[in-house]
């Protein structure tokens, strides 16, 4: 029986405290692309969650698009010749 709301019933066995939730929400806010514009201004938890959902959806779309692109590129390019370059590219962060 788990409560889903932010103000969950405080039982003695609550694993995650409200402070920790506040911290998690601000960490999420920092990840969002909007935070580059907003800076560190506090945004409501509801807005952070909304933006997070939109962000995840856009990332899913990006993965789909990139998969399409890679699929088409692999059909036309010989991958084995590019492998060394790819690996080098990937492993230098």
């Amino acid at each position: 029986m788990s409560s889903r709301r932010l103000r969950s019933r405080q039982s003695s066995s609550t694993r995650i405290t409200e402070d920790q939730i506040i911290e998690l929400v601000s960490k999420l806010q920092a990840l969002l692309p909007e935070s580059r514009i907003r800076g560190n201004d506090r945004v409501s938890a509801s807005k952070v969650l909304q933006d997070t959902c939109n962000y995840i959806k856009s990332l899913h779309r990006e993965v789909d698009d990139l998969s399409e692109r890679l699929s088409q590129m692999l059909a036309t390019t010989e991958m084995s010749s590019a492998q060394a370059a790819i690996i080098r590219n990937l492993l230098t962060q």
Partner: protein
Amino acid sequence: MHREALAGNPNPSRHLQALHFLGALARINKLRARKSPPSRRATALGGRRITRAAYAAMAVAAGPRRAWSRAILLGLRRNSIAKPFLIKKRILKPHRELRDVGSRAEELRRLLPGARRMEFGSLLDETLNYIHHLTAQVGIMQKIADSLCK
């Protein structure tokens, strides 16, 4: 138990993710090479296979400690395309203009694999980790696409 503690590498999980994905890509490419010439249908199928490989790479890098990665690995083992994020034209419930955190959390639970019944605090924690790996995956795929372009 942290991978980061084991390797001298600052970001071993990201490298694991990249290499796992690259290996899957090579396998998919090999499969495709057998069936030539490539049809349009084959390309579309390849796209879906690559998408699956992308999420598999993320899940492997995250390890079994996360509900979302377990959900993905389980779904892949059942050889089914995980529905929440591979069916594009999914009709969600009508979007109500509520500011309620609860309804936002519900939407997040639908987006995140394995999060249906998750308690709120864990949901946020899982989301952070999921986004971390998701953005890493986008970066990996982008780099590969760039490399293949040259």
